[in-house]
């Protein structure tokens, strides 16, 4: 899709909602170096949402949507949970169907888009919570990776079922007392990043969303690697401030506390050999492009 396609007929311009007018005027579809720095100066691909005030998931959503390398040809797949409150407000095609089947939907979607648009890039990005990714949807998460389906899986890890009111999830820490874990969770947090690596993912990152520049880099890499090489998995800590007893202003600090070197969301990354080579080629091209631009600027 090009930006041309969302242009409004002049006769109808004034009756279109202002958020649509803004999309046409200043969204960053098609901008090659789009990223988190566009936030504040261009129309974001997310409208007002109904998440709790200060919810780190809303920050994550904004950074991810700002960082997608190709939003004009990206389709996102969600699942049931707090994310499904946000997706209706997102200016990228997105699918919600059932709880936990997001990687199966994405598998069929990616294949259909490949059949229908063999000569064009169509990225597919899954974004779902930890219950959807690791508990109810685990088999479909893993099987998509086993099959080397070429899309990105992003898990918003808030370590519990937030939308249903704070029940135990597989990614919850051991010992945490929650609904359905009345004496504390009895087993360890599932180590999905390691499982992802062993299941064939080519790029795996475990981190928080405290630093937008880092989120931008990780999302961009994960989408580009998925497009060219194979499945990628990003696990982002997006704490549910409501359920862990924090105030609206405390989400960022909670993430910072959890990403210290000895903590469970210390930055961890795995890159497969083909993905390393691909990233190196990308970096070389980028360097070349920058050098050429500099030379051009010098001449001018």
């Amino acid at each position, binding site marked *: *899709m090009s930006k041309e*396609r*969302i242009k409004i007929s002049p006769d109808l311009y004034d009756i279109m*909602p202002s*958020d*649509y007018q803004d999309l046409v005027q200043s969204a960053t579809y098609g901008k090659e170096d789009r990223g988190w720095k566009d936030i504040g100066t261009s129309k974001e691909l997310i*409208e007002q949402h*109904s998440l709790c005030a200060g919810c780190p998931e809303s920050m994550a959503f904004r950074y991810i949507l700002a960082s997608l390398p190709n939003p*004009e*040809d*990206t*389709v996102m*797949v969600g699942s049931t949970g707090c994310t*499904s*409150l946000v997706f*209706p*407000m*997102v*200016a*990228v*095609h*997105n*699918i919600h*169907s*059932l709880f936990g*089947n997001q990687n*199966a*939907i*994405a*598998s*069929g*979607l*990616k*294949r*259909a*888009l*490949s*059949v*229908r*648009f063999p000569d064009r890039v*169509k990225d597919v990005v899954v974004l779902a919570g930890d219950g959807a990714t690791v508990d109810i949807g685990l*088999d*479909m998460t893993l*099987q998509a990776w086993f*099959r080397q389906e070429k899309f990105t899986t992003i898990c918003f890890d808030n370590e519990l079922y937030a*939308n249903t009111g704070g029940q135990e999830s597989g990614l919850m820490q051991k010992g945490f007392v929650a609904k359905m874990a009345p004496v504390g969770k009895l087993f360890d947090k599932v180590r999905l990043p390691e499982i992802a690596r062993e299941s064939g993912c080519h790029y795996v990152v475990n981190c928080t969303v405290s630093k937008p520049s880092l989120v931008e880099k990780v999302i961009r890499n994960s989408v580009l690697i998925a497009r060219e090489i194979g499945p990628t998995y990003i696990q982002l800590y997006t704490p549910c401030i409501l359920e862990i007893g924090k105030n609206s202003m405390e989400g960022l600090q909670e993430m910072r506390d959890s990403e210290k070197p000895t903590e469970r969301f210390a930055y961890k990354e795995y890159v497969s050999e083909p993905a390393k080579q691909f990233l190196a080629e990308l970096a070389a091209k980028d360097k070349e492009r920058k050098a050429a631009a500099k030379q051009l600027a010098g001449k001018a």
Partner: protein
Amino acid sequence: MAEIKSHIGTQNKKGQTYTDPWKMMHEAPRNPSFYTGSEVIKEALRRASCDVMIAYPITPQSEAAALIGELFAEGYIGDYFRGESEFAVMSQCAGAAFGGARVFTTTAGPGTMRAMENFPMWAGARLPIQMIVTCRGINSPLSIQPDTIEISYLLNTGMLVWHAETAQDFFDWILKGFMVSEEPEVHLPLALCCDGFFVTHTKDVVNLTPTDMCLPPYDPYRSPVPCMDMECPPVRMMRDPFIMKSNYISYATHASWQQEIWAAVERSRKHTIKWINGLIDTENTDAEVVIVASGTAVSQGREAIRLLEDEGVRCGLIKVKSLRPWPGEEIREATKNAKHIFVPEFNVTGWLAKEIKATIPNSERVHAGPHVCGGMTMPPEIIVSEIKTALGLRSESLAGRGS
């Protein structure tokens, strides 16, 4: 929006000519071939311009699903793979259909049940996926034998549900089914059911359309809902998500959407009548005794009628082809002369008899049965026996029934 143009008359990469579907199905020469039901599914798919087929093994549809894999290897299908379970397969089908593909899959019995959560979602999302259901038992202890109980679970999903009697029905209805399903005012999934083994694993003469003709490709931009391919503007779908809201607007939205699904089922009626030549077939419905059946119970009913004729009992037949849309008006009309209505079924609960009882006046005329289940065959003699007993006629005792 992708360029909308007619493909009719052009060729696909396999050299098949995209043909006007009505002409292909009604006017093109037919070639009699001796095939199993599974092979017939493959031959229908060869002519269906199918973009994506997703497979999973479960008896008795495994052979058909594997044969379609051969078609993929030959280049007739856009993409094909084995999913990890029926639940996943039906979600993968949904993903492919959301992405604008013509999608086909096959399942059976426990697979249908495992995948069940997907079917109302398919209908709600207006995905015109075609699913072949080769019915088998779903109960415990484990059974792989023919049994049509699973159809009853599909009736309220919002899917179109047809019940094929023969391999010929199957061949024609697979191709015609896409035409009905993909009508913009319908755009609903179709469960095309048959009785496992009896249809899938037996050979029959089937008149096939020419191999060098195929259906025109699916055009996802005729869908009543946007195709999820980022080829049309992505607008904010709603100002406030309705999912978990407890307010009148939320209720009204969900209610009207559900009503719209069933209105679409209703709108499919005229297309179904046109393509499969009526929702029911009838023979001698002026008789006082009428058998109403679907699937292979129709064949057994037809044979029972021949036996009854030998004994001087005249009996009519109603073959129910489409269960959704439900041929209520047609059945009321066709049974208006009947004093006794028999509904032989390959399941223990008699769901078809219940549907008929809820449809016609004076429902005490309906004799629900005979029923066989768990893989039992239905010899015409037990239908004859049921009818004669009900009519107070002397019936020969049947061997093996303990009488």
